[in-house]
């Protein structure tokens, strides 16, 4: 369970929140309201103050990379640091086994990143993250560039993760998706976070 007490930074008012294992909570609100800021602060990608813990272990008690592998953030715009897709997957066998679940063939690993479509980038970035087996997924619009069929594939995969006890905090503008996946919902506006019924 992810426990957040008094999380705050510039552009974000102090915020308390519990995310149970296997729970999916959606995050919505106007653009520029602080949704991305909130997710980045939880992942410790921007300096923030407050007490965060995962299964009882405080965020500051572990090195930041270890925290981020457990509480993993997926940016809306994916980043790539090598020319080939394969270089971003340390375990190619595991990647080949997972990619079909995203509607991608294993040979995608041999493609150059420059040739990927937006949707392919988005799915590969999510696959890259799923493969390090985080406990909490912080997803920033994970299906915004996908067609309905691939969105369905991704949602099925996310439901699978939820059943395995992974928790998800997800920014989405799609109300139907919210109803399909989330049990609770957060509203973020002007840096103020409030809970809403979905």
């Amino acid at each position, binding site marked *: 369970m992810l426990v957040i007490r008094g999380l705050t930074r510039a552009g974000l008012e102090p915020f308390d929140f519990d995310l149970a294992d296997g729970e999916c909570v959606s995050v919505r609100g106007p653009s520029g309201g602080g949704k991305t800021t909130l997710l980045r602060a939880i992942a*410790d990608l921007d300096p923030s103050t407050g007490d965060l813990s995962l299964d009882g272990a405080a965020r500051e008690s572990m090195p930041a990379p270890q925290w*981020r*592998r457990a509480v993993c953030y997926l940016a809306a715009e994916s980043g790539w640091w090598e020319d080939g897709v394969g270089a971003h997957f340390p375990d190619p066998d595991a990647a080949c086994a997972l990619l079909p679940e995203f509607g991608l063939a294993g040979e995608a690993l041999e493609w150059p990143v420059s040739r990927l479509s937006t949707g392919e980038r988005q799915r590969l970035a999510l696959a890259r993250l799923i493969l390090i087996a985080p406990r909490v997924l912080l997803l920033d619009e994970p299906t915004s560039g996908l067609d309905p069929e691939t969105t369905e594939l991704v949602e099925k995969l996310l439901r699978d993760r939820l059943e395995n006890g992974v928790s998800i905090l997800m920014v989405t503008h799609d109300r139907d998706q919210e109803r399909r996946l989330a049990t609770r919902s957060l509203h973020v506006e002007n840096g103020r976070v409030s809970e809403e019924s979905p």
Partner: protein
Amino acid sequence: MNFIILSPVDIAIAATLLILNAALSIFLRLRLEKQMLVAAARMVVQLLLMGLVLKTLFNLDSALFTSLTALFMMLFAGREVMARQKRRLKGWWSYGLGTSSMVFSCTLVTVFALTTQVRPDPWYEARIALPLLGMILGNTMTGVALGIDRLLTGAAAERSAIEARLALGHPRAEAFGNVIREAMRTGMIPTVNSMSAIGLVSIPGMMTGQILAGVAPMEAVKYQLLIMFLIAGGTGFGVLAAVLVGAGRLTDQRHRLRLDRLRASSD
């Protein structure tokens, strides 16, 4: 040693070439004549002043004044490094990063050369120490300026790639690795290039000077080799220090990318 002493008239004759160029600039409407003459005037004044300073320093033979002059040269080089950056760090870092890297590497390499290879008596003799430092500093400055510039623009341009790695739990040294290596390569390349072109395309200035002053070519070659190795070492250490410390400044203990420590882009 027998060398030909130039009279002011000789220099004035050479300067007529510049006047000719300025006339051409007016004729072709390049509008460069004013800049050209100002630059030339600056060169004359600066070099004459330097001649005076060196003459005084050589006569003084004082370790204090020699090291003060050396420090002054390095502080000026630091300003030049800062001026050559498109993106800058906030606060004192924009000046301090390049300057401290150069002070570190140039002092190290110059003292190393003076105490173990050239060995003048005393080892800090201004006639040897300052020209040596000047040559090492000039090249290190170019390397450090290029390295820092590449680091800062690279960090900003590669932001999403670096943050993607950090978000996946890669430590900062790994996430920044590509940008750091690219910045170091950029800083070192001019030195590597000049080593491979030297002797084929160009006769280096110092060697030319020694030959004109009557030194036997092989002796001048030995000096030039020594200098080139010192320059390569000084540039290497300087670029290394500047890029690593700069990369440290752009990240923090919690392995975050801190682009907030960069000033907003001026262009």
